[in-house]
């Protein structure tokens, strides 16, 4: 029982980090109908920015916001200078989703090459700002540590901020309108292009946070070749698809589900099945509900 609760706690922490990644992917998908395979690469670049700020200032609480700003800036830059011209050329057809994915894959390669050029074999270091020793409950240490509590707190805070933006502000309303019906939004005076860039920027900040938290929660350091970030992206994407790719709440639900189930499998069945389990979970969910847990059925048919 004790072990099981610990496994759940580990799964929820991992899932909450995936959920930020999933949100980044969903926001980009909603604003431009593109799956951005460079999300992991952008998070990696922002995490490196965070690591160098941490090295200079020594404060995690300055490094995290700066990394988020950097992530937002990188992401908006890419949307404006790369994706917008690309979509103009390809005419925003649904058929071209494969080409757009491959283009962002190329972007990922370039980002990684630039990071390798700058950092080489160096690693960015982001040690945990709080103790990662678990709290002691009735003589035994549980998997909930001050660090994990901080991670859950940050994710929860960001969720509240995002919910507020989407439900209570004009920006949020425009974001929702622009993704729901771009033509009509344009007619009612929303500057759809600008709103899309804003969507990408928010996604970049969410991805950067996911990257920083994943690094502190994991090994505490990051390299330009990081396989961890590839996995972070893959699990974030899988979670987003489970949640229905259109829905932010779906992304969170999908991520927590994925995080908890993977933690249980890792605990009781061994590490070699974890990756395959992610595939099995995805297939099972999609067989039952082909458009995800909170998907719009039959919506947006081209």
């Amino acid at each position: 029982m004790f072990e099981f609760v610990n496994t759940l706690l580990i799964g929820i922490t991992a899932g909450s980090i995936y959920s930020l990644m999933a949100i980044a992917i969903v926001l980009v998908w909603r604003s431009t109908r593109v799956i951005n395979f460079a999300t992991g690469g952008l998070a990696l670049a922002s995490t490196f920015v965070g690591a160098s700020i941490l090295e200079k200032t020594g404060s995690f609480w300055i490094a995290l916001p700066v990394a988020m700003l950097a992530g937002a800036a990188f992401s908006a830059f890419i949307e404006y200078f790369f994706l917008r011209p690309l979509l103009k050329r390809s005419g925003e057809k649904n058929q071209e989703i494969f080409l757009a994915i491959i283009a962002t894959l190329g972007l990922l390669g370039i980002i990684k090459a630039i990071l390798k050029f700058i950092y080489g074999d160096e690693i960015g270091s982001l040690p945990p700002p709080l103790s990662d020793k678990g709290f002691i409950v009735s003589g035994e240490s549980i998997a909930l540590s001050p660090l994990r509590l901080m991670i859950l707190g940050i994710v929860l805070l960001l969720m509240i901020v995002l919910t507020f933006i989407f439900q209570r502000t004009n920006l949020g309303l425009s974001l929702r309108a622009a993704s729901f019906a771009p033509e009509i939004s344009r007619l009612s005076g929303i500057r759809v292009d600008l709103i899309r860039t804003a969507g990408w920027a928010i996604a970049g900040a969410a991805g950067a946070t996911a990257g920083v938290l994943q690094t502190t929660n994991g090994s505490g350091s990051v390299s330009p070749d990081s396989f961890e970030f590839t996995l972070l992206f893959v699990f974030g994407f899988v979670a987003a698809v489970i949640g229905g790719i259109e829905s932010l709440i779906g992304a969170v639900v999908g991520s927590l589900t994925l995080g908890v189930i993977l933690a249980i499998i890792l605990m009781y069945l061994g590490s070699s099945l974890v990756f395959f389990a992610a595939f099995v979970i995805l297939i099972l969910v999609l067989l039952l509900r082909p458009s995800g847990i909170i998907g719009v059925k039959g919506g947006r048919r081209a």
Partner: protein
Amino acid sequence: MHNHQITNKHRFIGFALIGLVVYILSNIVDEWTAYQGATVAVFVVAIASVILLTGYSGQISLGHGALLAIGAYAAALTQIYFSAPLWICFVAAVLVTAFFGAILGAAAARLSGPYLAGTTLALAVGLPSIANQFSILGGEQGISFDAGWPPLSLGETFTQYKWFLWIATLAALISMWWVQNILRSRYGRSWRALKSNEVAAELSGITIGRSKVLAFTVSAGIAGLAGALLATTLNNVSPSAFPLALSFAIATGAVLSGVNTLGGVMIGSVALVAIPEIATSFSDRWSGSENVAVLLPDFIVSALLILTVFLAPKGPIEKLRSRHSK
């Protein structure tokens, strides 16, 4: 050139010419180049399987590396447990992978766009790692797959790598001949129809589900052959031979070749093999930095990929064709 039709006879002559050129080259080039040539042939088969699925039937796959893995393991297990000759191993790889492809296709036929991309991506990450779970698959070290020494009748100086090149080229030529025929058949036409408009295709009597599953099955079978060929050149099958990067490389090659036309399949394959070579020799000559030598190939491939998507989204062949017809 009035109404000049390219018939199957012309194509056969073209295939034979390619075979002849490879035969002549294989007698001239050194060991390493012969090995690279075999790798090109493997990529030709792998990329063709993606082009068939994505370019013709409109289903996205980012997970073809996993299908290659199934083919490679099927070939190796057939050799180990039935001590079958090489060509039987290849046939087994095709059939087993096609079978898995049919199951996967049945699930995939209900999915579209991002859902299918996510599913195939998860497959590419997940499938190779289960080799560690079953001892029959040999874990991280993998299991061996031996193409055997070239027959003595070919002479004593006939090298192992030249033998690989011959096997891979012959397999590639035969499978490409078959693929281009099927793409011109009733099935190929119905795949293109459902890619361009599903509703219209359904109204003209095409069973969407069955057609999509068939495309997935055929594509998987070809990918299985590519996997068995890859195992031949590596002498071994292990999870590390099928990383996510392989799936991405195949998709990249498909875009570089022009994903909507089979004709360009050589371009992407040669690019994937040649660019790292060129980049290495370039950085050896111009820069002493080891760091640059490591990152240059990836950088060039990525940049080329982005350029292709921007300048020739339909692929280099279509680009030339449209320029000609102007």
